[in-house]
């Protein structure tokens, strides 16, 4: 990774060589709150982000997915267990792990272009014409070339997400972490963004963590699906999604996809039911409403 940094100049043409890092989570736990009122959010989670794969984490909302993202990104530390990036322990945030946040985190006081060049400019990896060319190339790639001198708030939701992708990609991260990045977009833009993002991923198969609560989105994108339980989050199941790539939205209608969905849904449904009944919803509802996902 360090070597790639120093050679960053030539890396524009070598997108294929980078982004194949591996992340291992080993028995990671995290709690919040005071001693006498401790809320365990993540309990003993172990899984891997395999190099070059798109790992999608799904789980009921509020189960601790964002905490998981914060831990891997290095914004927070686990209480116990460890997170290894290519064998090295994660101790803080770094440009090797780029995060695309739930709500847009583009700096509203910088234009789209300024946002994109922000990281490389600060670190001094690239400068002058080289940086400008690379930024413009990426902006054109995400279809924002014409909008690069607009401020983020002048862009639509989908455009903001694409700008954020460009801002992340220019740093040539070895891992891209996306925390429900398409939440809040309308169904149409969401579908388009999913396909756009897939095309981007399928170009160079960068190790990717994608967090979502949408099961269709998860199956459409994933190489591996990690299903989390209710809070405290634990890994319920890891499913390898063997749909062929490049993918197309119509594949979601195949029998194979349906089977994956059925499997994932029944686990998620059980989890949802458990949290439902634990909140004291009348038992006849939870008993009669058994896990029967409909396609």
């Amino acid at each position, binding site marked *: 990774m360090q070597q790639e940094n120093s050679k960053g100049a030539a890396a524009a043409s070598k997108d294929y060589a980078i982004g194949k890092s591996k992340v291992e989570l080993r028995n990671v736990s995290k709690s919040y709150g005071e001693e006498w009122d401790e809320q365990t959010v993540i309990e003993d989670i172990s899984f891997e982000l395999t190099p070059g794969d798109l790992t999608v984490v799904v789980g009921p909302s509020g189960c601790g997915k964002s905490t998981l993202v914060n831990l891997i*990104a290095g*914004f927070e530390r686990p209480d116990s267990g460890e997170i290894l990036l290519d064998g090295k322990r994660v101790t*803080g*945030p*770094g*440009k090797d*792990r*780029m*995060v695309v*946040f739930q*709500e847009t*985190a*583009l*700096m*509203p*006081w*910088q*234009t789209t272009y300024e946002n994109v060049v*922000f*990281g490389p400019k*600060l*670190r001094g990896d690239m400068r002058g014409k080289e940086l400008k060319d690379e930024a413009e190339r990426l902006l*054109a*790639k995400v*279809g924002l*070339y*014409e909008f690069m001198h607009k*401020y983020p*708030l*002048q862009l639509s939701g989908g455009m903001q997400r694409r700008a954020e992708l460009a*801002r992340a990609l220019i*740093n040539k991260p070895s891992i891209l972490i996306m925390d429900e990045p398409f939440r809040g977009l309308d169904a149409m833009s969401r579908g388009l963004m999913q396909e756009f993002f897939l095309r981007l991923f399928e170009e160079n198969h960068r190790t990717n963590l994608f967090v979502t609560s949408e099961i269709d989105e998860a199956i459409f994108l994933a190489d591996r699906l990690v299903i989390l339980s209710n809070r405290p989050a634990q890994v319920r199941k890891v499913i390898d999604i063997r749909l062929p790539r490049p993918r197309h939205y119509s594949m979601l209608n195949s029998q194979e996809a349906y089977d994956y969905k059925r499997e994932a849904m029944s686990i998620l449904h059980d989890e949802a039911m458990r949290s439902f009944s634990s909140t004291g919803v009348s038992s006849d509802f939870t008993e009669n409403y058994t896990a029967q996902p409909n396609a």
Partner: protein
Amino acid sequence: MAQAASKSKNTRRTAPPKGFALFLYRLKKSFSTPTPYLTIAGVGLWIFVYWLLCEGLRVDRFDKIPGPVAVARDWFSPEPFQGISIFTEAYWNHIYVSCRRIAIAFAIATGVGVPLGLFMGWSKKIRDYIFPILETLRPIPILAWVPLAILMLPGFEAPVIFLATLASLFVTTLNTMLGVESIDEEYFRAAGCLGSSNWDIFKNVVVPGALPFIFTGLQISIGVAWFSLVAAEMVSGDHGLGYLIVDSYVNSVTIPMVIGMLTLGLIGWLTSILVRSLGNYLMQWHVRELALQGR
């Protein structure tokens, strides 16, 4: 991709007007909205009621107050009946003295208050040092400081400037601090992710992020500065608009008193516009954000 997008544009825009032409365009456009008419009607109504009370109906006790006609006649007369008009040197001297005091006080308060507030918002340690003192001193009315200021500082000038500075310092500091606190945590995280040092974060996130609050604070602070300046000039001072008002009252010349008040109002408004324009100039992104919301 970018070229394709630009070709698909079939609307041709004319060049936007600049400078004076832009001003004229806006002025012309504003006459198609109700704003200028309502403004004129509002001011007219206000003057009419004032005239009615003092000169038209001569309501009891209001008859001692100079009405709009008497004030205007003196204000714009080369040989004013009660000694103060736009043709007398004394009038402009009072304005100059007050404006200079405001300029000094506002400059000191901003120069100290903004950095102080930024650091207080950014670093918990600095806030822990300063905040309790600030919160204790802040509620003390500026008039309560007058005796202390006269005892502490020599001459007329220093106490007056001190009092005006003090009042606006509190407002500026507090608003700036709240401005930093209002910045979304995700911007800090995004900046950290992109490899910013603390100083980079301060320059690129803390300062621009707090700017909208800072300028709201500065607009209030310049108003407060005028307020406390006049209070201070009334108690201790040998020139200035506050002094003019109280001196006229003592000498039973009521027209200069009203002229002084109206002048204060107009200049106060003007300074507020100046601060707001500076803010808009510095925060193009914020202006556009507000414009999108139709404001």
